[in-house]
């Protein structure tokens, strides 16, 4: 099936919710959501009028990561816990109470479903066996403190499409590429522009790397966040994408939007790597597409709400976005 061009995507469906939704994982038409009401929910997006239904309320804080491995749904939250749920039997498998010492920021499932990666503000990426829940390895390559002495955050994680690599990105702009099997560091790059520290006006920081993705050929690393900010009371920096030849340690492109401000919270390459989709926002949201070869923006679409995450179908013809108060589905017409 041909990979659709970005201009073919149209908004197809919207589901309103009175919460912030931070995470989405899809199993066919069913989307599993992690939200600010501390719950994990499910919604069948193929229905004409999709209804969101509770799956569980095992967490004690914002659910910021969900990942699927077969019929196992794993969720992570600011409570530092991982909850493993059997979606077929609709029951709890296990809870990993102290999965992380601080806020869990995101989860990612390896493409073959064998591993779950979790990242947290304890600045560690942990790899878990998806069937047993056992800890397989810990990836430590991010500093616990910012250069200015404050606690840092580990915001972004992604597997490469072939599952051999993991990428992590943090608040101060440090990105590490790991061998997913061995748990060893292969390379690192820096995107410090995405971290704004204001020593003069406000004496605190904003920003950070919020999304990472690796191209299907493993050659190109994409990093998303926000450009430099003047007034760090607001997300008023331009949305920012940086591309790297990570093996060579070379920066390929820095692309800031003239149309949208805020964070790029999620990135995903098209299945053939020809384009890159990204979404995020500030007070409002956006869905953007970039041509990877030409290193330029193809399309920037305003979305009515700040987007925290999206799930793209394997064929690359559907993108389900979640964020402030809505689930929005873009499909190829």
């Amino acid at each position, binding site marked *: 099936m041909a990979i659709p061009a970005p201009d073919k995507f149209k908004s197809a469906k919207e589901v309103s919710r*009175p*919460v*912030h939704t931070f995470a989405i994982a899809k199993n066919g038409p069913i989307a599993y959501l992690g939200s*600010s*009401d*501390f719950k994990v929910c499910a919604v069948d997006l193929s229905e004409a009028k999709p209804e969101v239904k509770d799956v569980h309320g095992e967490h*004690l*804080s*914002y659910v910021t990561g969900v990942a699927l491995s077969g019929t196992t749904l794993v969720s992570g939250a*600011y*409570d530092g816990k991982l909850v493993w749920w059997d979606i077929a039997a609709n029951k709890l498998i296990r809870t990993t109470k102290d999965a992380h010492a601080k*806020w869990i920021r995101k989860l990612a499932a390896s493409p073959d479903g064998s591993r779950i990666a979790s990242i947290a*503000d304890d600045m560690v990426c942990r790899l878990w066996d998806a069937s047993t829940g056992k800890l397989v390895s810990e990836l430590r390559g991010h500093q616990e403190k910012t250069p200015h*002495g*404050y*606690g840092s*955050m580990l915001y972004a994680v992604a597997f490469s499409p072939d599952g051999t690599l993991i990428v992590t990105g943090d608040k101060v702009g440090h990105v590490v590429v790991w061998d997913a099997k061995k748990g060893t560091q292969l390379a690192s790059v820096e995107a410090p522009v995405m971290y704004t520290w204001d020593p*003069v*006006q*406000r*004496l*605190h*920081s*904003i920003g950070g790397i919020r999304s990472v993705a690796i191209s299907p050929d493993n050659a190109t690393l994409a990093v998303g966040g926000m450009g430099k900010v003047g007034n760090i*009371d*607001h*997300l*008023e920096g331009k949305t920012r994408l940086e591309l790297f030849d990570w093996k060579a340690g070379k920066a390929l492109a820095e692309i800031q939007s003239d149309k949208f401000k*805020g964070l790029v919270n999620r990135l995903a390459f098209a299945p053939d790597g020809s384009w890159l989709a990204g979404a995020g*926002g*500030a*007070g*409002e949201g956006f869905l953007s597409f970039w041509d990877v070869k030409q290193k330029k923006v193809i399309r920037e679409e305003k979305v009515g*709400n*700040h987007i925290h995450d999206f799930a793209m179908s394997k064929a690359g013809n559907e993108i389900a976005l979640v964020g*402030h*108060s809505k689930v929005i589905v873009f499909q190829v017409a």
Partner: protein
Amino acid sequence: MLKNFCGSPEHSVNRRAFLGSTLGTAAAMTGLNALAEPALAAELKKTQKRVILLWLAGGASQLETFDPKPGAATGGPFRAIPTDVPGTHISELMPQMAKRMKNTLVIRGLNTKIADHGGAAKIMMRGRRDEAGIRYPDLGAVMAREMARADSQVPDYVTFYTQTEGRGMAPGDPGFLGARFGPMELTTNNTPDFIRKLESVSVLDHKERADLRDLLSKQFVKGRSLGETLGSHNEAYERVRGIMASEKLFDINQEPEKVRDRYGKSQFGQQALIARRLVEAGVPFVRVGRAWWDSHGQNFETHAEMVPELDHVMTTLIDDLKERGLSNDVMIVTLAEFGRTPTINASLGRDHFASAWSMTMTGGKAKGGAVWGKSDPKGATIVDQEVNASSLFATIYSALGINPHKNYYLGSRPVPLVNPGTEVIEDVIA
């Protein structure tokens, strides 16, 4: 110039004792330090209340500090943790303060109505709005007026505000009390500018110039009835010499390394340490402005960064003052111009909110462990024991031993310290 010595023996200072041990020697310029004068320190301990105001400029969130609402739609992601006061919970971002809430009064019932930075800051530094023809003094000026020694040779009112954002919105202001009770404003560094003796003038030179001025003044006044004028003139010079001599109070390198490490390397921590040094030396009021909390976007990230620092600075101050026997006489106040909205906006921020927010007092006669005021389960309104700015300030004054119903005078016009009809919250005064 208003007289500031009430004549009470309790408020008098043995001038000779105060000055005699430090003047008259070549080391006079560096010797004036109440920290090094046990007799003076004891005198101060007996009578004088002091305030360190931690001014959380921009408006820290009450939901992420002292009035958490975990599980509410407005509560955000942080949990509430129990404290050493049964039934009282605060944000998980303040684990150190959770062990010291029995020393701290929390007022959760603030409804101060004004939610723009400038207007709100003025009210929350004064307890009231200015009126036509009357510029009211702020808390620092009142403390300087009420607590300063007649012949004090340390500053009476010091304010640190290093960041540029919001600085102009709440400058120190003595209002109608006049410049005598105005602040020493430190904005660019932690040591006052222009008080250092010039390198070209030796200590001996400086003393001899003062002695000569004194001699000439006495000769001048012979046969003239200028006693009061000259007294005022001499007092001004003594104050300047004293303030010049207090330069070392601002130098944290005078503290042992372990004390400096305890406060930490942050600007906030270092300024809090200087504040402790100043109040210990008898400065009645020090404001440490920690800007800038105005988290319209990314409220939780900002508070995750800044509240732990506040937790550390507050608790270090509380413990340090207690160890030095100063808890009864030095009150630590946390206050801002307003709090933040329960509603979380699309940027995961909170906006300005003056309808239900919090402040704290630790020390003085503030009743440790007490909680006054209750907000609804979402934190949107006050449902019990509402407090406005005027009653807050009446209570602060009362907790410092100042009669909030006393009058100052503008000419012959009595001007009450707080708005007429304002009640003190007696239940929170120990």
